[in-house]
């Protein structure tokens, strides 16, 4: 049986003394070095705090702190809000595409696609592409258009197609009452589409 030890009073008694003995071999920084390390730690922890603290809506204080710490947070890939499923879990977003092939045949597809994107992590990478596209602000339009064009060009090259039309599909979650009445999560009424654009292949 595993017994959960407490902080510095292990209930696994035999382990205690040898570790004390080993502790005598440990190098401990002197006071000056501890001050230097402490300053670095304080700056780092403040930066960690500023990352999620600066997610809009923000205060003047948060904006000022963000401007100071942004270079470090971005370079170290610490600029995160940690807003997992927040403020609310919402509908998901997919991209449906219609391809016009060189021989005139029309094909259709959607990504992410569980049948094509395996393993699950790869599916999730494709899922994040579509969620990211949806998360881009409406203004400036060039940003979302740029990403849509990039996705389109990739699909055109991958399928060797002549033209592609992209739609952003929003998949709403049914209310509990609707599911109790028999509605499936894949009910077509739960999908809403928005045209992203039609793109020709550029070499």
């Amino acid at each position, binding site marked *: 049986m595993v017994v959960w030890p407490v902080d510095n009073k292990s209930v696994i008694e035999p382990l205690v003394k040898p570790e004390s003995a080993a502790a005598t071999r440990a190098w401990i920084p002197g006071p000056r070095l501890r001050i230097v390390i*402490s300053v670095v730690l304080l700056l780092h922890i403040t930066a960690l705090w500023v990352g999620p603290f600066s997610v809009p809506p923000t205060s003047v204080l948060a904006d000022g702190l963000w401007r100071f710490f942004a270079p470090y947070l971005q370079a*170290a890939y*610490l600029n995160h809000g*940690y807003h997992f499923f927040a403020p609310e879990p919402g509908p998901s977003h*997919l991209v449906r595409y219609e391809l016009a092939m060189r021989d005139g045949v029309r094909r259709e597809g959607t990504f992410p696609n569980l049948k094509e994107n395996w393993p699950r992590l790869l599916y999730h990478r494709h899922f994040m592409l579509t969620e990211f596209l949806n998360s881009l602000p409406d203004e400036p339009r060039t940003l979302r258009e740029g990403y849509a064009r990039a996705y389109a060009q990739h699909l055109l090259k991958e399928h060797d197609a002549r033209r592609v039309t992209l739609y952003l599909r929003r998949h709403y979650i049914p209310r509990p009452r609707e599911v109790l009445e028999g509605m499936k999560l894949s009910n077509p009424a739960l999908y809403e589409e928005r045209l992203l654009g039609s793109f020709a292949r550029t070499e």
Partner: protein
Amino acid sequence: MKTVVAYFRELASQTLGGWNRFWFTPTDPATLGLIRLLAGAMLLYTHLVWTLDLEAFFGPDGWLPKSIVGPLREDQFAWSYLWLIESRWLLWAAHLAALVVFAMLCLGLFSRAVSVAAYFITVAYANRAVGSLFGLDQINALLAMYLMIGPSGAAFSVDRWLARRRAHGALAPAAPSVSANIAIRLIQVHMCIVYLFAGLSKLQGPSWWDGTAMWIALGNLEYQSLDMTWLVNWPMVIAVLTHVTVFWEVSYAALVWPRLTRPIVIVLAVPLHLGIAFCLGMVTFGLVMLFGNLAFVSPSLVRAMFDRRSTRAAMSAAAETTAPARPPRGMRARPTGASVTSSVRGQRTP
């Protein structure tokens, strides 16, 4: 007036003493070694999966070409050596090298150098693949960053195994180390910030208040890997799951430190993250969050569970020594009733 001055004096001395103990007490690197093994495996898997569609995500004709992602990043400091790679052969060579580094990190071979390389590679991939990232990448980078600070190869590693072989099996348990403690403390503090803001941000959403948020998550077909919609018949269960999630996340940063509540907080992390893993299709994210939580597990427990050899060595050595740990210079003795936030790990006083 004297009372006020005495209060501030005591506040200053206890704060400094607590800070010293919190950061500068040597600790057994066993927990850090275990986190290295698991996080290394996750980093290896994460980047192995990129291999399946490498050129589609990092190549010039991929989903995220430089011409599109570049402008989004031009006023930022989000560096990546992958921006510089134009040739597909060079991309594959760099990727292969990255996989070797992550494999070595997982195994604990040349751990010191490899852990530094692993962090920079992790950040380089994340900064290049903007638009295809999620929580997994954030926690991967978090763990990789702190693994390079402490002696993550001092336990559960090939480095350790080689050292033991060179010593003909007579190698003493890894020495407690201040840098191992700093690395573990940083993971702990960072996890607290992650959960605190994950919880606080949920407080802005009505569904986390009306108890339906968990339904919205479970009813999302694109996330779903296990059909849990039968819970629709149990609205009370959905409400409990919703509220417990928020309460747990918001209170994590406070309740994970006291030794009495810590086991409860950490044990609750298991169903929460395994639920995300197996019901919402994010096994990698669920697991990597649990790896981060391991920072709160005592090295003694880690050794008792996974390192029988050191446990036996420690037990036999127990009879031979009673030497006390040397406290850091200038570090005051722990005052009676010390703050719960200054709990000391790894300093074993007889």
